[in-house]
């Protein structure tokens, strides 16, 4: 074996990538050749120094949590099906408009203790939280217009459903605009209406649980919530409007849904 051959074989020797026979040949050459012996010694020493040094890295706990949270695991948030599996990139520093609302929603969903039987109640609480959040300055609308033909296309490609946007201006409910929100681990569309000084958030999501043909009444934290499902979608209307007026909103909206071509 000459020095050139030996040099190319030093590394497999150092790395234990050789069978014993080859290793013996290289070591035999190194014992006779001081130059190759020096190299072998230096590379081994360097490797030993690297092994002793702390070169490994520990992934930050928040990264681990973020990855786990994005998996559709059974958790306190209930079922998060695959289509909602999205890893938020840098959720706490994201420059997108929903960043704050999103992290607030995630934080809120941690606070909620949800057992499957209480799921409905939990979703209602999430809906109310999202409503309260939306009332903070600058959070109510992503698209601000009273034109239903602007609001509806705005949702295209942003969410996997086409929320029915209905102009109820003639009924005394002014369409203000729309927004993407995040409730119970799912992206939802919100259509925002106003009567007098009272905002109404109408949240629309793909129906996942049982159908609620009849409207369910709830109140949480002083807000009225109306929930029903229709045409494969779940609807929640939330407002600080009185129960009578919110019922009126639902009564006007539901038939209009079937009247409109959407």
């Amino acid at each position, binding site marked *: 074996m000459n020095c050139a051959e030996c040099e190319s074989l030093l590394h497999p020797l150092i790395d234990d990538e050789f069978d014993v026979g080859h290793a013996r040949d290289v070591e035999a050459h190194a014992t006779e050749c001081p130059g190759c012996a020096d190299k072998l*010694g*230096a590379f081994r020493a360097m490797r030993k120094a690297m092994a002793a040094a702390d070169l490994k890295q520990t*992934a930050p706990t928040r990264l681990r949590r973020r990855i786990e949270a994005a998996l559709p695991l059974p958790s306190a948030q209930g079922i998060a099906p695959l289509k909602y599996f999205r890893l938020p990139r840098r959720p706490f520093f994201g420059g997108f408009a929903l960043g704050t609302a999103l992290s607030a929603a995630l934080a809120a969903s941690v606070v909620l203790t949800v057992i499957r039987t209480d799921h409905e109640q939990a979703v209602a609480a999430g809906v109310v939280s999202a409503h309260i959040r939306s009332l903070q300055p600058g959070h109510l609308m992503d698209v601000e217009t009273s034109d239903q033909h602007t609001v509806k296309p705005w949702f295209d490609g942003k969410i996997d459903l086409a929320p029915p946007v209905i102009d109820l201006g003639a009924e005394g409910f002014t369409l203000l605009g729309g927004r993407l929100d995040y409730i119970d681990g799912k992206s939802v569309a919100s259509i925002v209406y106003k009567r007098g000084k009272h905002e109404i958030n109408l949240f629309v999501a793909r129906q996942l649980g049982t159908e609620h043909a009849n409207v369910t009444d709830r109140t949480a934290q002083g807000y009225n919530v109306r929930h029903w499902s229709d045409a494969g979608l779940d609807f929640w209307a939330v407002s600080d409007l009185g129960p009578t007026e919110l019922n009126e909103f639902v009564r006007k909206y539901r038939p209009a849904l079937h009247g409109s071509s959407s």
Partner: protein
Amino acid sequence: MTGHPNAEQEKARRFRDAALPYIDDVFALARYLMRNAEDAEDMVQECYLRAFQHFESYRGPAMKPWLLAILRNACYSEFTRRGKREVSLDDPWDDDRAAEQMPIWQEPSTSPDVSLIRAHDDETIRRLIATLPQPFREVIVLREVNDLSYQEIAEVAGVPIGTVMSRLARARSMLRSAWNLAEAPMLETVP
């Protein structure tokens, strides 16, 4: 909606148990490739997202090299997306900061102290590795930090074993010359 919710949960649980234990290895490679902690975190997330999406079709190789290969692809797509512009932020692993303390790369000289190796602290060793050019840094990290075999490195880097061997030889020669040029006391060599 794909699959039954319980099937999805079961898949997610299996994926978490199989893949998450390697997060430190994945993060380490990301850190050395991206040279920036924040970018590294993004790449690790991207890696686990892609891995989960392909988990159903995963049949091997071993989980660690499989994840590292996905991570490497994610990093290289990111480099391509940025138009090859590697970022340098204010980070101890950053190219520029490290370069200030590093001489220009040289092939090893045949000076008399050729067999001597200086003692360096961990921070200096990390910096020396971080300043290696990309393909050499990668092979050193896969070998010395991730503890992969030549065969596994070949799979992760998508090159023949011969290339792994020649890259590793060059990488160690470069590292050794830089190692001895960086200021530190001399160590005895291992005979």
